[in-house]
């Protein structure tokens, strides 16, 4: 049976990848890699994991080698962060369009400059439109579970898309949490070996990555779009299966204390658990506040999201990435777009906070909720507010 142990979250992810019996791991230690791949290379070195570990010379090559390995039918994993993810950017789009089901842990960190190794979501938000399935963990257990689930989702013949499992840098990646680890025999029935639909096979030659003229390009992109939208059904199936087997239930959007809530805070990632404490504190004072956190970011679960915030008068979005010169952050933009066509829609107050590892405390979320309600009452016309900026 599964046992619960105290473990660094990064190491637990490498345990999940080991249980997935991954075939090829490619990785580069760009500022900064985590213990995820270090620990995996130890497993390979000790013979505990039968995989090829390819210590490439850059993140660009990490993703490129992952695509090559996936194309021959290998279950393939890599992990990265911030600048490394930015360096992979070009190949991210190719992974999705070539329908190669690579799984990657993205330990979310800020993008330079200034150089800063701490947490925010700028790195993955730059990959928003790459065509990857993107999920966000709020704690170590989720990071572990989502990693295992990612292979099953990515490799489903109805999906065949890469999956990025996001976890916050340091706040999750480097902390020790109690994590329930599975035994190999518990995982095997859930996650059998990868059965590729097409692979580079001399017996049945195919050309992958062909040149696409204007006459075919849109059709390819449309197929990727349909596969990505369609993947939500598979994600739901995998989460249902996982829940039935192991008792932990996952949903694309989760609600916390939203019953009767007039103001709802929207979060993603590990800040969610801190935000829950703020909600509890305000609820104790009789305030009608709740929280919704988005686990499945791409494909965006519009239906579930709209259902989750139904009835709220005010929605406060907390973004941890900024789209400079725009209307704030990507989550706020998505939320506003989701609501735009609705006749009855709440007031949306968009906040950007926590960039480059700036601490987000319970007080920050209380401040955000207070401001959101105040602005809502006045129907304040503003794009977004950057929280916690020191002016002096």
């Amino acid at each position, binding site marked *: 049976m599964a046992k619960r142990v105290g473990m660094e979250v990064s190491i637990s992810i490498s345990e999940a990848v080991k249980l997935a019996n991954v075939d090829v791991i490619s990785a580069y230690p760009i500022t900064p890699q985590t213990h995820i791949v270090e620990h995996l290379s130890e497993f390979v070195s000790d013979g505990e994991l039968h995989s090829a570990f390819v210590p490439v010379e850059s993140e660009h*090559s990490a993703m490129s080698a992952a695509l*090559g390995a996936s194309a021959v039918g290998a279950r393939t994993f890599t992990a990265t962060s911030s600048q490394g993810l930015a360096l992979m950017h070009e190949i991210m789009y190719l992974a999705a369009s070539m329908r190669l089901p690579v799984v990657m842990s993205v330990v979310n960190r800020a993008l330079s400059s200034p150089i800063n190794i701490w947490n925010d979501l700028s790195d993955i938000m730059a990959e928003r439109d790459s065509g990857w399935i993107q999920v966000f963990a709020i704690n170590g257990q989720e990071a572990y579970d989502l990693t295992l689930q990612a292979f099953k989702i990515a490799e489903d013949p109805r999906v065949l898309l890469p999956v990025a499992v996001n976890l916050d840098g340091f706040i999750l990646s480097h902390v020790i949490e109690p994590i329930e680890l599975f035994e190999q025999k518990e995982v095997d029935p859930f996650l059998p070996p990868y059965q590729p639909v097409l692979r580079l096979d001399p017996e049945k030659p195919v050309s992958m990555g062909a040149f696409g003229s204007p006459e075919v390009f849109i059709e390819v992109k449309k197929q990727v779009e349909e596969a990505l939208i369609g993947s939500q059904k598979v994600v739901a199936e995998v989460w249902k299966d996982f829940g039935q087997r192991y008792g932990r239930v996952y949903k694309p959007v989760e609600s916390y204390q939203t019953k009767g809530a007039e103001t709802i805070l929207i979060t993603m990632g590990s800040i969610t658990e801190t935000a829950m404490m703020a909600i509890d504190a305000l609820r104790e004072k009789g305030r009608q506040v709740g929280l919704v956190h988005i686990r499945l970011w791409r494909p965006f679960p519009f239906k579930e999201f709209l259902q989750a915030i139904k009835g709220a008068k005010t929605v406060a979005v907390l973004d941890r990435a900024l789209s400079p010169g725009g209307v704030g952050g990507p989550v706020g933009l998505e939320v506003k777009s989701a609501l735009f066509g609705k006749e009855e829609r709440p007031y949306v107050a968009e906040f950007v906070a926590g960039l480059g590892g700036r601490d987000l405390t319970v007080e920050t979320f209380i401040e955000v909720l207070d401001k959101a309600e105040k602005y809502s009452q006045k129907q304040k016309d503003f794009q977004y507010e950057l929280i916690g900026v020191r002016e002096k």
Partner: protein
Amino acid sequence: MIADDLKDFKKFTPKTLPREEPFVSGHRACQGCGEVLALRQVAKAIGTPMIAVSATGCMEIISSPFPQTAWAVPWIHVAFENAAAVASGVESGLKILVDKGRIPRKEIKVVAFAGDGGTADIGLQALSGAMERGHNFVYVCLDNEAYMNTGIQRSSSTPYGAMTTTSPAGKVTPGQTTWKKNLPAIMAAHNIPYVATASPAYYLDLMNKAKKASLIKGPAYLHIYSSCPTGWRHGADLAITVSRLVVETNIFPLYEIEEGRYTVRKNNQPKPVVDYFKTQRRFAHMTPDMLQTIQERVDRDYQRLLQMEGLTNPAVVKEERKVAE
């Protein structure tokens, strides 16, 4: 050891050329393209089972306009700078899947193709990494000495003096002002088991080298001179002529480096370099002074190559001396 890997190696003769064509006709290369000829010769020499990896470039564009393909073998193209990295993944993936019993235990040759831009410039890092890691694949640089696919821009492999769209022959600078980057030397410095240069005019030599490269375990690098009538401004009927002249003038000597031992195809009575330069309009602006500078450099580089052979492969030198006497 190379000797073990090559124990069953038999040289091709005109009569024993394979009939099989992993790279088939119907592709969209320019008339008289020397590069696609070299590509076909390599593919034919190595044969099946093969997985080909292409960098972005002329050969990728002309061979794969969806829904057509000129590849009768499994083929993958990802991007411009990463053919060596993709090939690393292909090779690692095949190896582990064979080890795990998920695909049949049958040796599949992995061959990466890239142009000089994809090799000497944007792809150099990925190539260096793959060679250093020791992956078992053949990397083929098809060197047409500029970015032809994008409109004839200079690369670090463009020879001194050549006119391109970004090294024009202007009033101040006469074409390319730098000397061609020596990629085979850089590959040799990685201590890989096999490095060779080849020209499609010497097709048996080229095919033998490609075959050897594919038989040797570990990384192998082939640097193949690939004439480009479109970019070099020569007649579409001159691919073989220029591909031969470049060797006869010692501008592009043919040699092999096997486990560090150099073997040079001797040409001790080279034609003057001007014979080569006058065949192509990319060199039309060159002055006698420039040609003299190039002649001296070519002579010096060839002598240096012979010195490397003398240092690393005294047996060959001794043998040749005996034959001469």
